[in-house]
């Protein structure tokens, strides 16, 4: 919301510079975004009076004027404009003057005749031109002013404009008057509400008929007929200057009045050409597919959710949003109907959004205006119509809806206010602050009467904020919390932190991925038609297909990141993500029913384009270390070909006691290709909750006191036999005496028969009770070899 300080000055006199004003207003609750000083780009332009003029002796189109600028000598100025005349008051840019756009004016000669400055047009002074007719030549000043007066003063172009961010609870501040009330309260100055002449809203129902069909969407509708508009009437300079300062373009007296009233009072106004309205005015829902050409010349298709203003035959305007072109004000308009109404905020907001229009009017209605504002707006419009001599104001007004101003009352509780703020204001101090803001008090002073324009105040907490902001929040003393509380993390939170720490120590960088994804990933992952992952949570109003569903699998996001890193020519990436998968599932949590299970997953992705280090076994090593460190025991890796998007020969599932924790492996080459990844990327994913459930407590195990005996054995077995099976046989045969076994070689080649492989183990035998004698160890080895032999695994 822009605020012209000149305009503000009509209501409250602020003796402070603009910077100080901005600061004070911000800390009393009206946040200033920025401010600008108007007229800064114009220097040394004054009002001049043309004393005489003559034709240029060598140029037909030039005039030589003698101009009085209230200086020692009259100035000789050459102009090409033809609209000047003797006695005219015009803007004169003196020698050395500056104009908008960085233009400098200097003494110069036109075909031999000296010109000591320049007469200026509207556009040369940076004033918008309302019609082509108005820009015919030099601006002729019709307002009262003095010769030699600075043009900025004469044309009221000097102003300071402050831009406020108005919070949604204060629609009353979307007006000059609203901000004037705040400014007065901030500076402790008095503010008097404008008094309106009651005859402007006296009723006569005979002439103008209004019918409100949708009373919930239109709480109040006031209309006034104004007859005999002088079509040549322009709005005065001061009004145009203010409208301009507030970012609006002056158009015509009637339109300017509606805009001026809206800016000043906050009440959006509309004006209809009364002769274009047939029969009565009806406030109704639009018909499905009803058409209306709006003021901007665009033909709009309406629907039956939208509120319109119509007459007996057709829609005239979209209520609170934009007027219709046909019933709009033109230069031929003679009779007008002013509309000052209150439309439902949600209805206006939705309609404006559907139509893709945001107007000053719709933006105000969207915030929720008081129905009591309608009479204010209408009265002010009438006042201006008379003041400007636009027409005689007929006393015809119709009003519908609420009219009683029944104020909201709050029983003042000073203890509550002090308690909430941490202050010790006396009752009088509190009252003084509320009075400044326009609040009233009942006779016994125990009840606060909320002014009609403050729809946001309902209770003592609201009053506390009013008191605090006038006092300045920053004056409230800071005080430490009393009492103690234990800050704790849950075991699950600590576990997640531990996972992050372990992944980092293994060299992986944590990533952050979007949880919203595209259903197209289902195809790219080559999921079956009936795969459960396809049953995902769908967002009804997504930004686009790419973020239209909640992911049921974290892998695609990881693949996209691997691909984007490859695309950026990063040779190597070791990434992990701790984020959720969103699984449709009805269940109950401590707060009741839930429809979606948000399952945390640890997702790992890796590639290395430069070397072979990052392979299946690299990731497996990382996982093994992770499981050991967090305390998952007796986990098993089993080859799996159940995951459509993984390499069927290079993927393993990881389980504990038959419970699947997750998987790891190489990405399926087709999937890699569809994500634009080079072959060989590695992926792993673990269910964090299941991991957490498989944790075992760590207990100290005695470090063995007796020496260990080492034996190496080299074996030959079927090439496809997983070594895990060999290890199980060895462990089974050796029982407790085998402290550990370590695979130190796997080989294929000349010395090994076709279809077989060689494996070599180093076995460590140790007992907690005694030193194992050679003989005993040898017996164990024999036992192991026999057991292996039974399964076709022979000593090499």
């Amino acid at each position, binding site marked *: 919301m822009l605020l012209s300080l000149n305009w503000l000055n009509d209501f409250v006199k602020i003796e402070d510079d603009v910077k100080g004003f901005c600061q004070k207003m911000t*800390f*009393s*609750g009206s946040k200033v975004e920025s401010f600008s000083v108007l007229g800064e780009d114009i220097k040394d332009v004054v009002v001049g009076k043309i004393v005489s003029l003559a034709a240029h002796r060598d140029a037909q189109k030039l005039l030589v004027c003698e101009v009085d600028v209230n200086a020692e000598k009259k100035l000789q100025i050459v102009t090409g404009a033809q609209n000047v005349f003797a006695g005219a008051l015009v803007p004169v840019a003196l020698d050395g003057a500056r104009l908008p756009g960085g233009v400098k004016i200097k003494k110069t000669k036109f075909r031999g005749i000296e010109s000591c400055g320049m007469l200026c047009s509207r556009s040369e002074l940076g004033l918008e031109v309302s019609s082509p007719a108005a820009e015919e030549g030099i601006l002729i000043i019709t307002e009262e002013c003095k010769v030699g007066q600075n043009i900025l003063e004469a044309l009221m172009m000097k102003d300071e404009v402050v831009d406020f961010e108005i*919070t*949604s609870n204060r629609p009353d501040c979307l007006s000059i008057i609203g901000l004037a009330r705040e400014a007065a309260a901030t500076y402790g100055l008095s503010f008097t509400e404008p008094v309106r002449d009651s005859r402007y809203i006296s009723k006569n129902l005979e002439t103008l008929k209004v019918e409100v069909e949708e009373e919930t969407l239109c709480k109040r509708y006031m209309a006034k007929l104004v007859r005999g508009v002088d079509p040549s009437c322009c709005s005065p300079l001061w009004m145009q200057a203010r409208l301009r300062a507030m970012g609006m373009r002056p158009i015509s007296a009637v339109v300017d009045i509606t805009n001026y009233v809206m800016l000043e009072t906050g009440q959006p106004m509309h004006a209809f050409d009364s002769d274009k309205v047939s029969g009565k005015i009806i406030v109704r829902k639009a018909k499905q597919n009803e058409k209306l050409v709006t003021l901007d010349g665009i033909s709009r298709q309406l629907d039956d959710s939208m509120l319109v203003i119509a007459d007996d035959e057709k829609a005239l305007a979209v209520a609170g949003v934009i007027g219709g072109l046909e019933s709009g004000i033109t230069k031929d308009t003679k009779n007008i109907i002013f509309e000052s109404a209150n439309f439902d905020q*949600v209805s206006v*907001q939705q309609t404006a959004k559907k139509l893709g229009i945001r107007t000053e009017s719709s933006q105000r209605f969207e915030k929720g205006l008081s129905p009591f504002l309608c009479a204010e707006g209408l009265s002010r419009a009438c006042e201006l119509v008379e003041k400007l001599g636009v027409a005689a104001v007929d006393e015809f007004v119709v009003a519908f809806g609420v009219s009683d101003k029944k104020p909201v009352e709050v029983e003042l509780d000073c203890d509550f206010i002090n*308690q*909430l*703020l*941490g202050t010790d204001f006396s009752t009088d101090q509190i009252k003084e602050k509320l009075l400044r803001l326009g609040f009233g008090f009942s006779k016994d002073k125990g009840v606060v009467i909320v002014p009609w324009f403050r729809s946001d105040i309902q*209770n003592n*907490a609201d009053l*506390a*904020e009013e008191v*605090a902001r006038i006092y300045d*929040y*920053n004056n*409230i003393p*800071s*005080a430490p*919390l*009393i*009492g103690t*509380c234990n*800050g*704790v*993390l849950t075991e699950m*939170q600590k576990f997640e*932190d531990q996972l*992050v720490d372990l992944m*980092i120590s293994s*060299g992986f*960088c*944590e*990533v*952050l*991925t*979007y*949880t*919203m994804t595209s259903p197209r990933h289902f195809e790219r992952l080559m999921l079956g038609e009936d795969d459960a992952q396809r049953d995902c*949570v769908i*967002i*009804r109003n*997504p*930004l686009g297909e790419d*973020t239209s569903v*909640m992911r049921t699998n974290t892998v695609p996001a990881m693949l996209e*990141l691997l691909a*984007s*890193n490859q695309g*950026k020519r*990063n040779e190597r990436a*070791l*990434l992990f993500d701790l984020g959720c998968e*969103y699984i449709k599932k009805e269940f109950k949590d*401590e*707060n009741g029913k839930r*429809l*979606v299970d948000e399952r945390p997953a640890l997702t790992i992705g890796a590639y290395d384009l430069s070397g072979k280090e990052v392979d299946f076994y690299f990731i497996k090593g990382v996982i093994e270390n992770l499981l050991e460190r967090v305390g998952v025991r007796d986990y098993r890796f089993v080859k799996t070909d159940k995951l459509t998007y993984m390499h069927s020969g290079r993927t393993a599932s990881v389980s504990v006691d038959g419970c699947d924790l997750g998987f790891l492996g190489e990405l399926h080459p087709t999937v890699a290709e569809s994500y634009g990844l080079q072959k060989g990327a590695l992926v792993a994913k673990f269910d964090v909750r299941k991991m957490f459930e498989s944790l075992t407590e760590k207990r100290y195990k005695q470090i063995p006191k007796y020496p260990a005996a080492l034996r190496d054995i080299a074996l030959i077995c079927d090439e496809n036999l997983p070594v895990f099976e060999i290890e199980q046989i060895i462990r089974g045969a050796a029982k407790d005496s085998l402290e550990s076994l370590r695979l130190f070689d796997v080989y294929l080649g000349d010395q090994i028969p076709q279809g077989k492989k060689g494996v070599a183990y180093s076995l460590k035998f140790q007992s907690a009770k005694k030193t194992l004698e050679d003989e005993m160890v040898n017996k164990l080895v024999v036992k192991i070899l026999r057991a292996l032999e039974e399964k076709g695994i022979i000593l090499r």
Partner: protein
Amino acid sequence: MKVDLGGDLEKIRTEAKKEIESAKSLKELEELRVRYLGKKGEITSVLRGLALLADDVRPVIGNLVNSVRAELESSLNQKVLKIKGSELENSLKSESLDVTLPGKSRKTGTKHPLRTTLDAMKEIFVGMGFSVVSGPEIEWDVYNFDMLNIPKNHLARNESDTFFITDDLILRTQTSSVQARHMQLHKPPIRIISPGKVYRVDEIDSTHSPMFHQVEGLVVDKGVTMGNLKHTLETFFERFYGREIRIRFRPHNFQFTEPSAEVDISCFVCGGEGCRTCKNEGWIEALGCGMVHANVLSMCGIDPVEYSGFAFGFGLERIAMQKFEIDSLRLFFENDVRFLEQF
């Protein structure tokens, strides 16, 4: 033959010591050892000459010989150690490395900068007695809106602001939803922070994203005041930035708090003098906060007459961007390893 054993000895001693001193290698020293102290060495031959001496001088000379022998042995040993030392020194020199060549150690990974930031915040708040609480992202609108005093017709409940799954199931727009859930189940005193992902209908650009992170704080107890809120935030910022931070409150409007405020902090880079980080303002917008609205307490089953509380909400991305001087929010989600490895 005149035997001047004493004079001979002295001569041997002087000469031997000189030679030992000037020896350059272990080999030379070994030769000297043989020449003077060996079986056929000069000292040994002097010893042999003792037999020719008179009984009365023999012990005197004998002692003298032994002391010279001991002296030379000690000199030799010392010199050996010295030469060994300098030889080792030389060999170490020949093994010298270019210490400016890159190190071989495997790099550890990194936490995402948002987690680094969150961890720092968590640590401070836990230290101040706050527990960390989380809740669902796919949330009933009741918890996200109604129980936070956001009426049915509020603009935020529109499809242009909130992602809807069904009419009453949404992607939470604020982690304040966790406050409502927590208050329903726990009686005061309550001190919690709830970090997590939140969602709003915003296209991604350098300061917006449809998914981002908030850290909400909530304190409810008897006699909690706005002064307590100020103190809590002051303490947090001082610990977070490790320097004195001034904070200032500006009145604002949030549905679930009354009074409400926006908080600026004095610039943690320049301390308020004005710099690039604070755009020469000296102040940086930090968060929103306020006293929990009585309606919110009531709806969550807490008596607003007996209890009061405050709530505050940080945008995690914003804090992290400020802390690390990151100029675009997109970087958090792009996850370029050249970005990630910097933290």
